[in-house]
């Protein structure tokens, strides 16, 4: 009895969490006649790729796709390059201002970014950086930086310092020891950190909306999707197909992450 109630609740939770995404996907595959019906079908009886074709052929689709990819990758790489040394300094070295720096990173991590939309818009305007993709790259770089530092700090701290010391004894310099010993062990950490950064930047809407205003050619996918009514009118099939395509990379990244997170490589380096 109790078991049945529990399972019923579980099925309820599962249904609520999955249904919206399920509805998006099957709407994208339904022929238009089946979407424009009074009684919705909960299973696509006659699946079609028409809506995906409409979405892909929509004006600017590939431009927005390329913009999103370029901005996101740029931000992630920049964040990694800047965060790695900072994370190392926090995890491995003892220095007077260390605690202050960590506090600053935590503050930045919880910064109310939406309250900075107006000043960032004005600064970008003054610097003639509106409607330019590098501006977005910079913004996404800073929004993902705190998280990247905190996460990498954890991964670096998990690499036993004995390994580095051994390399130093063998005559490596500090930088060489880091590159040869720590960096290879950090690979899974770098991977998952950058993937989380990728998701954050890929999804970002508020700044793209505030900073890319005039030029259609500089929009990213979230902006394009937010104006779906202007693009597809009431073509809900194409709208859902576009949303599905937008979600696909994030979903793939999540699937990769699941495996990466549980990799016990670092624990095995010393104990094994």
């Amino acid at each position, binding site marked *: 009895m109790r078991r049945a109630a529990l399972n019923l609740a579980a099925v309820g939770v599962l249904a609520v969490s999955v249904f919206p995404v399920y509805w998006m996907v099957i709407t994208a595959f339904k022929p238009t006649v089946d979407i424009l019906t009074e009684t919705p079908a909960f299973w696509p009886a006659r699946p079609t790729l028409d809506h995906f074709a409409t979405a892909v052929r929509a004006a600017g689709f590939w431009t927005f796709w390329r913009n999103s990819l370029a901005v996101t990758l740029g931000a992630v790489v920049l964040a990694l390059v800047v965060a790695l*040394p900072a994370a190392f300094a926090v995890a491995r070295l003892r220095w007077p201002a260390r605690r202050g720096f960590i506090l600053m990173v935590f503050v930045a991590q919880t910064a109310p970014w939406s309250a900075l939309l107006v000043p960032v818009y004005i600064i970008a305007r003054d610097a003639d950086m509106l409607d330019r993709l590098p501006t977005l790259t910079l913004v996404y770089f800073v929004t993902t930086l705190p998280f990247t530092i905190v996460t990498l700090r954890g991964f670096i701290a998990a690499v036993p310092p004995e390994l580095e010391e051994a390399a130093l004894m063998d005559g490596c310099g500090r930088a060489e020891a880091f590159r040869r010993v720590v960096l290879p062990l950090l690979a899974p950490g770098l991977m998952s950190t950058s993937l989380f950064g990728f998701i954050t930047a890929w999804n970002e809407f508020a700044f793209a909306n505030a900073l890319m205003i005039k030029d259609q050619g500089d929009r990213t996918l979230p902006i394009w999707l937010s104006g779906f009514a202007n693009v597809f009118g009431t073509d809900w099939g194409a709208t859902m197909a576009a949303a599905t395509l937008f979600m696909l990379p994030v979903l793939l990244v999540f699937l990769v992450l699941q495996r990466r997170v549980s990799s016990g490589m670092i624990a095995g380096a010393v104990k094994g």
Partner: protein
Amino acid sequence: MARALARTARPALVVEARTRRKGAFWPYLLVAPALAAFACLLVYPLARSVVISFQHFRLGELIRGGAAFAGLANYAEALGGPEFWAVVRRTFLWTAANVVLIMVIATAVALMLPHLGRRMRLAVMSGMVLTWATPVLAATTIFQWLFQSRLGVVNWVLVRLGFDSFRDYTWFADGRATFAILVALVVWQSVPFAALTLYAGLTTIPGELYEAARIDGAGPWQVFGRVTFPILRPLFGLITSLEVIWVLTCFAQIWAISKGGPGGATATLPVYAFQIAQSLHRYDLGSAVSTLTVLMLLAVLVVHLRRMFREEGA
């Protein structure tokens, strides 16, 4: 033996000495780029926002520059009008409704997970990861489709259940209905993180504690109140303050679905600040509202940061 010891001991000392010597400036060099990034793109905009909030800064000043000092005029205007206080009340209602729902549902789900069969647990967790992975803009688009007036599946279900007034009901024309949909959307998106984190915390509690409580005759509510909650209190605190910060500063969902409308019914503080800056070109007033928002957040932030420090053991 002694010689061998000496041999291993000496290089270690060298390492120590080398770190100390370089320790003076190395760390600062390593964090310099990160510091520069925070200074240029976080501290500077924040400072600029505060400065603008004390200026007369509208369309003319945006184009020509040369904004004049205006003292507290913008703050007086914001705090003096009824609109700002209506937005503040709405923001509190928005935050309270979302955070309470998120925490209650997430706790219930987290407590349910350990009692499920292996397969069912995996299914529920995968479902929640799917929700978590859904991009905000995909989610807003989906919810607009779910609640569409004529073809939306929600109205269809409600009519089938006998609520005939929902036939062709236009959710997004009504302020309260739009507010409710936005709450549903944010709760739907936020529960997975909270529930999975709480569940991860739950799994660290040794089973003996539950057994002991049960032997002492504690019911399920007592077990939660006397064992589970006290142990997980820091985690609860951390998640709650994070959710408060996220929900209060939430912008994308509201802007993408309603732009703060209809009739301002979904304009929370960040949305309102952006609205008056963007559509009325009142950058000064918008900045004043933003600054006031940050000040309100500061209280939550301080509590949260203290918890972070304790948890992370920095």
